[in-house]
Structure formats: structure tokens, C-alpha cells
């Protein structure tokens, strides 16, 4: 299994490229995390909340009509059934418990689709902590319903107007807030991104997805799947789903990125089209120009609309352990329509990208067993569906 080295590197990727101001907080976070990770009472509190508040374990559902349509055995890992409707809460719950351990008094987070913002606002309400969320002005428009949800949950939402006005800029803004208030504020980053130890911590809190899926698969099929599929924004649901399978060499790991309007136009396919570089505290695959200026990503799904991807996935791709496909806005929309009608499950636009690879030729063989992570549900995307479908 992959582990970051002492400085937080997975191969050449990762690290903690941040101003000195943040280093004490990152050290504190790492020390606290290493300690509580072993602590039975912390583990107990987390697993109780995961069971009783989030509703874990999430089912591994055999999608019979989809299976019949495509000729594969398709199992769906139903993270969409979690409280708040996505995998994001696995991470925010773990991190708020960490924040409490560190005695932090305030929580900040960035959000793209608003799912991470909602999941953060939710656990802050649960723990009675003040919560400030940064969100790009464009995403605030695309995901108006989630903005309202965060406010209802008691969070303040700050609109970010710099750059592309999306997730990238919200993340920059959240880091800047953290720089100012680092002594009493914990930053709950929303994906397996950012400076060490975040990619490791987020992955560990999301690992439960793959752990459960593996066990459920063995119970149902008596064997491991041929393929495990997940969509990739920053990479948290993907690394969470993949992690337990990394050492299972017969299982293909297939990550799906957003090809937006097409790989030769505007897209968010940082693993397919990016180069290694530093953004938001770690060295990752990035969409950038020759000089190193970060390019503006595009995806119809706000949660995939980010020009980078976490270090561990960058690494797994570089050693060819991870296969990557890119899916356009159009293909994702059409997959969403198919899955809704076939299974009565309306996936999030992000998740629809994962479903879209089922329609691609030559990726799978007839009869292959597939486990696909349904990272979230589509409620938040109704406006977009209504406009495009």
C-alpha cells in the first residue's frame, strides 16, 4: 500500500509547499492525527457517528438493469445514500473530531459543488462550531440550493470573486484565511489535496468506502471485482474507493476525469493533460501553461472543475497502477439520464462521469464484475439537468 514519506511525498508528488506560517499548524495536525488514529476512544466515537449519523455502511447495490443493458455485472457503492448525499461527510466528520482534539475554535472550508461545504456545515452544526465556507461566485450561482443549505445549517458563505471564481479560487481564499487565523482555526480541506498531511488524512477518512466495498463484494460474489471505477475531482472519493484495492494487482483501478467541452477545448482533465507542478501546497498533476500559470479548468460539474488532482492519484497514474479516462459534459449528462431511468438513481453530475465510461467500447469484457462508486446524488444538480436534458 502506498504511504507518503516523511515529507509527505508519494513518489515525486505531494509535499508541503506552503509558507512558513502554516508549517506549525500542519505539524500539529500530523502529530494529533498520528496520536488519535491509534486511540480507541477516538476510533469508537468516529465509527459510532459514521453508523448512526451518516448511516454507514452504505449498501453495495447490484444494478441489474444496468448490468443487463451493458453486459457486465455492475455493483454500485451507494455513497449517495449517506447523510447529506455524498461521500464528503466521511472526511468532514473525521476532521471535525480532529479539530476538537486540537482545541480549535473555528472551522473553515472551501467548496465547489457545495457538497463539501454542506458536509462541513453539517458536522459544525453537530458539534456546535462556527463555520465559514469559501465558494467561487460562479459556483454560488450554479449551486444555489447548496448555498441555501449551508446557511440553513448555520454557516457563513463567502463569495470568492478572484480568478475563475470557482473551486480553485475558493481554495486559495480558504488557505489565505487559514494563514491569518491559523492559531485557533482548523481548515477542513474537501479533497485528497493540499499540503501534507491532508492528502493522507482525507484518504484515510475516505478509505472506509473501499474497505466496505471489498468486504461486501466478497460476500456477494465471493471474489474481487475486475474493475473499480470512481470519478476524479481532487480525488477523495476515488482514492477512498481504490485504496483497499491497490495491492490487488488483478483489479483495474479506473478513474474518470472531466473532459468538459472536449480535451482539445476547455476541460478539467489534469491527469490526462496536466504536468507536475505546485498548487495549493503540494506537487501534483496540474493544468498550467508553459510558464507555470495555472489554467482555468472547465466542467459542467462544479465538483470536478479543478485544474489539479491529489498527489497519491498523480503517483498511481505515474506508475501506471491507475488507468484514467476522460468524459465530456455531454457524455456525463447522457449517462445521468440512462442511470436515472434504468435504476431509479439520479446521480450527481460528478458521479455521472464515472457512469459514462460504461458506454465506452473496449474498456471491459462481457461478464466483467465492476464496482462503481456512486459518490453523490443529483438533487443539487436539478437546475443543470433541467436546462440540458
Amino acid at each position, binding site marked *: 500500500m502506498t504511504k507518503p514519506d516523511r*515529507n509527505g511525498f508519494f513518489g515525486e508528488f505531494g*509535499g508541503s*509547499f506552503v509558507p*512558513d506560517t502554516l*508549517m506549525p499548524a500542519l505539524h500539529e495536525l500530523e502529530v494529533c492525527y498520528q496520536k488519535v488514529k491509534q486511540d480507541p476512544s477516538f476510533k469508537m466515537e468516529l465509527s459510532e457517528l459514521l453508523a448512526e449519523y451518516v448511516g454507514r455502511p452504505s449498501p453495495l447495490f447490484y444494478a441489474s438493469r444496468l448490468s443487463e443493458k451493458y453486459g457486465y455485472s455492475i455493483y454500485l457503492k451507494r455513497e449517495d445514500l449517506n447523510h447529506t448525499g455524498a461521500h464528503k461527510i466521511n472526511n468532514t466528520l473525521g476532521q471535525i473530531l480532529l479539530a476538537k482534539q486540537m482545541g480549535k475554535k473555528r472551522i473553515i472550508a472551501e467548496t465547489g459543488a457545495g457538497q463539501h461545504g454542506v458536509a462541513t456545515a453539517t458536522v459544525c452544526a453537530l458539534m456546535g462550531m462556527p463555520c465559514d465556507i469559501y465558494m467561487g461566485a460562479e459556483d454560488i450561482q450554479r449551486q444555489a440550493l447548496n448555498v441555501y443549505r449551508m446557511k440553513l445549517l448555520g454557516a457563513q458563505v463567502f463569495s470568492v470573486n*478572484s480568478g475563475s471564481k470557482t473551486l*480553485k479560487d475558493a481554495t486559495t481564499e480558504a488557505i489565505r484565511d487559514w494563514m491569518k487565523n491559523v492559531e485557533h482555526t482548523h481548515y477542513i480541506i474537501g479533497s485528497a489535496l493540499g499540503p501534507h498531511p491532508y492528502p493522507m488524512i482525507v484518504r484515510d477518512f475516505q478509505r472506509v468506502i473501499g474497505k466496505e466495498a471489498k468486504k461486501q463484494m466478497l460476500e456477494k460474489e465471493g471474489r474481487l471485482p475486475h474493475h473499480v471505477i470512481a470519478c476524479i475531482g481532487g480525488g477523495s472519493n476515488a482514492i477512498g474507493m481504490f485504496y483497499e484495492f491497490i495491492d490487488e494487482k488483478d483489479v483495474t483501478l479506473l478513474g474518470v476525469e472531466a473532459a468538459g467541452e472536449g480535451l482539445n477545448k476547455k476541460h478539467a482533465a489534469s491527469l490526462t493533460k496536466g504536468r507536475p507542478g505546485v498548487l495549493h501546497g503540494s*506537487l501534483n498533476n496540474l493544468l498550467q501553461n508553459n510558464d*507555470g500559470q495555472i489554467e482555468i479548468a472547465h466542467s459542467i460539474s462544479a465538483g470536478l472543475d479543478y485544474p489539479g488532482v491529489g498527489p497519491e492519484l498523480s503517483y498511481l497514474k505515474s506508475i501506471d497502477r491507475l488507468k484514467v479516462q476522460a468524459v465530456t459534459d455531454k457524455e456525463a449528462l447522457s449517462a445521468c439520464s440512462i442511470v436515472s431511468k434504468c435504476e431509479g438513481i439520479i446521480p450527481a453530475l460528478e458521479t455521472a462521469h464515472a457512469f459514462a465510461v460504461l458506454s465506452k467500447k473496449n474498456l471491459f469484457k462481457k461478464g466483467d464484475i465492476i464496482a462503481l462508486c456512486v459518490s453523490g446524488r443529483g438533487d443539487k444538480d436539478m437546475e443543470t439537468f433541467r436546462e440540458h436534458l
Partner: protein
Amino acid sequence: MSIYNQDISNIFKKKKALIGYITLGDPSVELTYEYGCTLIENGVDIIEIGMPFSDPIADGPVIQASHQRALSTNEDVSLRQAFKLITKLKKRFPKTPIVIMTAINLVIQYSVEKCFKDAKACGCDGFILPDCSIEMATDYTKQARKAQISLIHLISPLCSSSRLKKIVNASEGFLYLISSTGITGERDAFATNLSHIIKSIKAVKDIPVAVGFGISKPDHVRDIYSFADGAIVGSHLIQVIAKHKDKNKTCEALKKSIKTLLKT
């Protein structure tokens, strides 16, 4: 004390140093040159050329906006351009140290070794890499030493004594002490333990220490000069440049700002 950078150590030997930050290409590369000259002619001892970056995590709204202005002009604002600008400034002011402040990604994409080599060739004296923590700096320190470029590290008031030692030992030229936690930009209060930190720094190595982030008033400069070797002014100058559209008026305003800051 610097082995290969005599210009930087000479400045600090003589007097307290005023260090001025300007963004490459805001509002144009040509005017960055003009404003650089104005700063030097009116009492700024060291020039910091800020490289515009799309996502500056250590900078406040003023400098971020300045970076965005520079990036939106469509002029070349790459490191290559910065090297050209430094060549030109050095021709006119051979003794004034010029350092580049940049997000590390621009250096990585240029190629680290080549970047420091080309920088040295144009007369650049040092680099400040605000998003390169000391834990990440080993390779950069090595390459910079090889090219005889000073790597000027930032150090925050929250820094632990063991990390402080590492940072000081890896630094050349001078050290950049951050006035308080947070990002660049004007502020009312500085951390209270700055002079204490400077004592800890000097106990490790005899290196000049300049204090930056939020310096905008003569009181600040006077205060900092009482315990540090230099003061760094960034957002304050950028605001002056942003406010005036006309070149001559901007030069006048910059001149006035520096004179005011240095009034003791």
C-alpha cells in the same frame, strides 16, 4: 553575512535597509522599470521583483489584484522577462541588490537549475520563494548555492526554535521575518515577539533580518529599524501604483511615499 553576495551584505553593513516590492508587469513591464528606478533613486536600497502568479496563497488582496492586472495585460510576464528587466536595472544601478519573489511553481516549470543560472547571469542577487517551506527547500538550497544565488527564506513569528535554526542555516543574503501571521497587506498590529525572534536568529548566524508584511507608516519603519536590519514595503507601494494612472504622477507619489516612510 554572505559569501558570494557582497552587494547585499554591503547594504546592510552601512545602514538599515529599505526594501521595496513591485510586481513585474503591473501596469506594464516598461513601467515596472521606471518605478523601480524611482524607488532606487529615492532611497529604496533593495528591490524585490514580484512575479505575478494566478494563485498567490501568501498574498493579500492588494498584491493578488496587482498580479491579476499584470497577468491580464497579455504582455510576457515570465521569469525570462524578469531577467531582462533586471539586466536593465542593473546596468543603471549596478550596486543595488535585486531579488525575485515568486511562487515556486514558476521556478519548477522554468527548471530549477537553469532558473538560478540564468538569474545569476543577469545580475539577480536572490530569490524569495514564499511557498517553499524549509522542509521542501533542500534541493533548491543546493541549486541556489551552486549558482551563487541567495535563497532568502521567510520566517513566521510562530516558528519553533528547531525549525528556526534550520531556516537560518539554509539562508543567504538576509532573512525575511513576517511581521505577524497572515498574508501580505496593510495591518494595524505586528506580533509582539519580533525582537526576541531576531535575537534567536542572530544567535544561530550573523545574518541581516528584514521585517515585512503590512508596513505602511513611518512609525512602522521607525519601530522596525529599532530592532531589525531592514523593512520591506510591498502592498503600500502597490496601492500607490494602482491609484495613479499617469506615469509621472505615479513616480511623484512613489517618491513622496518613500520620503514619508523614511521620515524619522
